[in-house]
């Protein structure tokens, strides 16, 4: 069953088509990887799905309901949360307060928000850092704070934008473990990632974007064998 459906979505910035006629669906319970060379339109697509940009054409359906045109906070209330590629912690708030602020979306009062936040922090392995002002966190933990904050809104679908970029190997393992645990909780995940090994190992299915268009879609094995995908990546590697 599809939880999220992207139907023929295009997004133009002036004359530039950042996303062109892209369609795919995210099934309930899966991890869908979204990959593509730099500038392929992955983050733009996230911003359209999440409501920061309205689509120029096409529509996005979440749980069968049309959500394109809604504001990000309304989409979040319907059960979709996201993280940002460039982390956006609430800098002058403690780690705990960051998560409390987002837990308030579903919590009816302060004590319930506190409880949800504490539980989420423990889940993300950040409980010992709860009193740290988030400005002072190292990048690896800030990336996890983004995930924790999104989780505290108790989403059905979680959009992760490069949650692994810039992590060292041990942080990487930790974050992969957390993503798997999130999946075990029954939360559907759509993830943008550059780290090929990570995306191949955790995704159930992968969608490849290139120059704003969908190049391929399939299981990691299918994608790994797809000549178009190999060309897109090798072509980029050669020019680099």
């Amino acid at each position: 069953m599809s939880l999220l459906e992207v139907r023929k979505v295009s997004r133009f910035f002036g004359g530039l088509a950042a996303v062109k006629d892209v369609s795919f669906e995210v099934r309930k319970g899966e991890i869908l990887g979204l990959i593509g060379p730099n500038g392929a339109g992955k983050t733009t697509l996230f911003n359209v799905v999440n409501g920061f940009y309205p689509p120029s054409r096409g529509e996005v359906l979440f749980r069968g309901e049309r959500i394109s045109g809604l504001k990000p906070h309304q989409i979040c209330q319907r059960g979709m949360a996201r993280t940002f590629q460039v982390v956006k912690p609430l800098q002058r708030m403690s780690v705990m307060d960051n998560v409390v602020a987002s837990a308030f979306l579903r919590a009816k009062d302060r004590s319930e928000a506190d409880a949800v936040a504490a539980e989420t922090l423990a889940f993300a392995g950040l409980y010992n850092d709860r009193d740290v002002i988030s400005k002072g966190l190292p990048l690896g933990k800030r990336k996890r704070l983004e995930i924790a904050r999104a989780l505290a809104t108790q989403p059905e679908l979680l959009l992760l934008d490069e949650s692994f970029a810039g992590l060292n190997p041990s942080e990487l393992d930790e974050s992969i473990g957390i993503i798997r645990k999130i999946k075990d909780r029954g939360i559907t995940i759509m993830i943008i990632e550059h780290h090929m090994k990570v995306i191949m190992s955790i995704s159930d299915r992968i969608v490849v974007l290139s120059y704003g268009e969908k190049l391929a879609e399939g299981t990691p094995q299918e994608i790994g064998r797809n000549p178009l995908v190999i060309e897109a990546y090798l072509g980029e590697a050669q020019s680099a």
Partner: protein
Amino acid sequence: MKNTLPYIVLAALILLPLFGFSSYVMHIAILVIMWCVIGMAWNLLGGYCGQVSFGHAAFFGVGAYTAGMLYSKLGVSGWWGIPASVVVVTLFALLLGYICLRLRGPYFALATLAIGVIMRIVTENLVKLTGGDLGIMIRERTWIEKTWFYYIILLIAAATFIAVRQIIRSRLGYYFVAIREDQDAAESLGINTTLYKTIALCVSAVITGLAGAFYTNYMGYIDPKVVFALHDISIITIMVVMVGGAATFAGPVVGAVIMVLLAEVIRSIPKLGTAHHTLFGILLIVIIIYLPNGIVGDFAKIRKLFGRRGARV
């Protein structure tokens, strides 16, 4: 200790008039408390929610003129201006928020700056309604003595302090600070940023308007240049909060004491007195460079500084 301090201060303030201070001292005390109220109001919007307003004189003035015009046009007591200003200022803030809150950061600040000036010019020119440059004079003073004025503004201040503290510790407070720190992140966390910014603006405006309505009744005379003043109201409001410490409970209180006393002291110095705005400007620059979080926010820094000096001597 820290939790009981506000109650100790409040108790001391309640007892203050019993000491029989001169009416000059009581006047200064009333001004200090009035500025506490305005500072706390601004702090809610600017300090916690991060929406810096350079036009709080607009709310102060609308509150003041609500009270003044009730007296001059309808012939009722100016004190009705206190409840009436809540309604009038809320409507005014809703309208203003609808226009200005879609702007972010410096653009919001500039828009509020313009609103303050526009309100002054409008009031100056609607002569039939407002009395224009002549202002409004309340002929019958309610009390000659200051004591009751003092208790009324103290009541408003105490209520404001409690209200701000309750708001900041609740969901609203978390949302305000989240919006200040990153509006896009806040929005993606399910926070209706437009709604909560509007709430912050309305509450802040209403409290400022109450201070304005009180001012009319207390001073007995208002004119557009005084109550819609950019430098004497809007800028001083920001200074009260910046000097005391933005986004702290005690900051506006400390800031109000310092700013009102400083203004009185500087004005009484011969020759230099006329340059008090210049001196305020210098003070603001010093604060921004050395104590960016204000006296309360950077209290640890101040203590360290004095500790080190003491050790050296």
